[in-house]
């Protein structure tokens, strides 16, 4: 009965290889964490996430359970761009500065004061003298110097945030002086991000490769208690904490005794846990139809919060017929954006009016005048005038060429159905859309080869350069300026805005650059995302926060019944 050896080996090999293939080809999980895609954000200084702070006396020593939709990876602040990692480590670390709830005003954090020299080239920070790490070591300027040196000289994927810093000096244990090569109005904002968290030199060096996973030693209000991979991360209150930035009501030790970040990859399970109270906060992204259902529940509140994020529709102008501005103009005019927002996004987004989202510095109010609004009749006219005549199947033809455009949207942004609707709408004006959605790794490969068609991406930003410089400056070609768009005047405006120490002038330049670029029809703002987070009513004092999409600010004010 045993088969000959050889055929058994063959069978085993075939099965094992089939298994391996099954894995290699496994469908992509939606990646809520993906930098270009994924995250729901919001715009519009909306209801500012009403903090129900003053409801009764805060109850101490509770445990808050938060759903974690995807893994964090390393919690070393300099190691990843992961959004989930940022949310967790925000509780364990502090930066020199913090941003206020308006996302614009900078506040003291570990630095109690700071000064910028008139030429914008020297930054002096005075550190608080009463701060210590979880391990007990007091914070000194040496830790700050070590942290920034490690960041700018290492292989950190975020080290560009500190680019331009040429020198770090520590004249005394509580003073840090940074020198930069050219004025950079964004540097202070970058230093308020959680990537700029201050590390303890001694424990980072002692931990080696284990820093960020087994060893985490920050100055934040919570410390790592237990980490069971793909299961949960448990944080425990740091009792000595009393240096929260002034944006918090409780600047001392947190009310909560523990925060449990529970790994829950499946949305339905996450929301069932929320409804039954097993989990008390579910962060974005939450499916729009689920949000409407959650809003009807007694025990759950859906909070929205201000957040800058714009989803765009862009062309690849190297790919005919998208090289013809008239075609691009007509196509943008043939898309009924409002209808897609209403029907596909259930109204959970705002019509795109500027590359920089409303509420963020550099927002371009006049831009809405140069963004084509839906007008199929005029779109047809433009194509007629451009020589594209309706062919036998309704698709236009010019010189034997069909008016067919490739579209390669990222599968989950802005939502798979959106492009199907666009396809149907464009058919109405005689344009064929060759729709080929691409998953994460495929899309990067297409971008790299310049083989993408019409594309969409979500651009979360809290400073204008993250949208305007990254997507419109010629030095951002080939990526993320994948249109590719090149204009000397726009480059000049951006270069000036980037180094200007005059915020009003800079904002004007940022807006002008967008205005000019929009006139070439290489892209249009599709919609501005909203931040929506579901919170159980047992939770008090929680306020969602949009700074670099984090949602979770330090939770010193939060408590649970």
């Amino acid at each position: 009965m045993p088969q000959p050896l050889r055929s058994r080996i063959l069978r085993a090999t075939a099965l094992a290889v089939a298994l391996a293939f099954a894995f290699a080809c496994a469908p992509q999980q939606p990646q809520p964490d993906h930098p270009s895609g994924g995250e729901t954000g919001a715009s519009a200084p909306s209801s500012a996430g009403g903090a129900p702070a003053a409801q009764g006396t805060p109850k101490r020593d509770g445990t808050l359970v938060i759903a974690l939709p995807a893994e964090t990876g390393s919690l070393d602040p300099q190691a990843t761009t992961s959004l989930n990692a940022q949310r967790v480590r925000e509780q364990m670390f502090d930066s020199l500065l913090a941003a206020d709830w308006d996302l614009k005003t900078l506040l003291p954090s570990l630095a109690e004061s700071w000064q910028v020299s008139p030429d914008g080239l020297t930054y002096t920070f005075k550190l608080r003298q009463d701060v210590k790490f979880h391990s007990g070591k007091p914070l000194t300027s040496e830790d700050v110097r070590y942290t920034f040196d490690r960041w700018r000289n290492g292989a950190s994927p975020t080290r560009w945030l500190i680019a331009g810093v040429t020198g770090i000096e520590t004249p005394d244990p509580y003073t840090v002086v940074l020198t930069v090569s050219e004025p950079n109005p964004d540097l202070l904002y970058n230093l308020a991000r959680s990537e700029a968290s201050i590390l303890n030199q001694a424990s980072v060096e002692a931990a080696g490769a284990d820093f960020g996973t087994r060893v985490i030693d920050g100055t934040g209000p919570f410390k790592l208690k237990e980490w069971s991979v793909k299961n949960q991360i448990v944080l425990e209150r740091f009792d000595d904490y009393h240096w929260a930035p002034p944006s918090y009501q409780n600047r001392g030790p947190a009310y909560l005794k523990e925060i449990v970040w529970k790994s829950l990859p499946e949305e339905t399970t996450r929301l069932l846990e929320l409804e039954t109270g097993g989990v008390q906060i579910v962060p974005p992204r939450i499916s729009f139809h689920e949000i409407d259902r959650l809003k009807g529940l007694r025990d759950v509140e859906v909070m929205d919060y201000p957040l800058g994020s714009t989803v765009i529709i862009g062309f690849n102008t190297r790919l005919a017929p998208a090289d013809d501005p008239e075609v691009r103009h007509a196509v943008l005019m043939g898309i009924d954006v409002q209808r897609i927002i209403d029907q596909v996004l259930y109204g959970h987004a705002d019509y795109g009016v500027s590359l920089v989202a409303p509420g963020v510095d550099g927002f371009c109010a006049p831009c809405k005048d140069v963004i084509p609004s839906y007008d199929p009749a005029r779109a047809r006219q433009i194509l007629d005038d451009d020589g594209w005549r309706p062919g036998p199947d309704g698709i236009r033809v010019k010189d034997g060429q069909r008016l067919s455009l490739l579209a390669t949207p990222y599968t989950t942004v802005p939502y798979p159905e959106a492009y199907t609707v666009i396809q149907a709408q464009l058919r109405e004006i005689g344009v064929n859309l060759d729709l080929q959605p691409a998953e994460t790794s495929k899309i990067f490969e297409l971008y790299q080869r310049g083989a993408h068609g019409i594309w969409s991406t979500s651009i979360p930003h809290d400073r204008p350069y993250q949208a305007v410089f990254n997507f419109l400056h010629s030095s951002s070609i080939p990526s993320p300026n994948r249109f590719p768009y090149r204009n000397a005047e726009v480059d000049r405006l951006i270069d000036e805005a980037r180094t200007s120490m005059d915020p009003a002038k800079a904002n004007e330049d940022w807006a002008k650059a967008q205005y000019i670029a929009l006139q070439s029809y290489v892209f249009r703002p599709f919609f501005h995302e909203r931040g929506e987070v579901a919170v159980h009513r047992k939770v008090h004092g929680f306020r969602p926060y949009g700074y670099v999409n984090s949602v979770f600010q330090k939770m010193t004010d939060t408590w649970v019944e």
Partner: protein
Amino acid sequence: MAAYALRRALAALLVVLGVVVLVFVILRLTPGDPARVLAGDNAPPDVVERVRQDLGLDQPLPVQLARYVGRLAVGDLGRSISSRRPVLEEIAEPLRTTYQLVVAAMLVAIVAGVPLGVLAAVHRGRALDRLLVVAAVAGASFPSFWVGLLLIWYFSYQLGWFPISGWRSDPWTLEWWRYAVLPVLTLATVLMAPITRLTRSSMLEVLGQDYVRTARAKGLGERLVLYRHALRNAALPVLTLTAVQFGFFLGGTVVTENVFAIPGLGRLLVDAIGLRDYPLVQAGVLIFSLTFVTINLLADLAYGFLDPRIRYE
């Protein structure tokens, strides 16, 4: 017997090595770039390049492969790209979890599926048989995603008997079962269907054999005939199926793991593939193929115990 087992084991090792190399190459030919994933969409090219160097991915493929096999030979699986943890540490607990889940589901599926198969065979062509066949087809057709959510909705959400999600790391205790019972049932539903069907058809074949007639003729009780004489002979294909399924289900639990938020190996690997975490995916496939060939080997050797006519040389 010992020589046969040794020969088979060596062959199995070669298979595993082949799979490892194949997966190594396939992974790197798959579009997607771990450095790009790690650095993020907006990172400038020089940063991505620096990250790539840091990961050793800028080296030619043969050099990378040689380094990998060299480290593998001394038991070093490397560090995960996304978490920076040693792969072995990252994979140990999820592996244990998935083994527990699959073993429990397998036991439930066998304990329930085999008797149902026998029952169907005995009542061949009658209403009970048809009912069981339909149930088996249905069980195999329900997606485990849906079965899992249905079970959660009814038993956890409506009745509140079990936790909605999660997992305990103290296996086989009462508390563990409270967490495990729904995911185990979900998996067992899928596993049970083919076991029932195969037991039925295998039994039908055996029940027509001379020795069964002889056993009945010499006056043995029907229960003894069925379970001692018939089932033992009908069990061989069922055993093969179960072995193959075991290997397959180590990777096939990902949907169930996602629904119930179980920190298992399937989830770990699917996430790792998404992130192009090469060391983690390679280690996972290594473990799968090791398990797979080991189970196959054990199943072959077990034939000898179930059917003494089988001799190994």
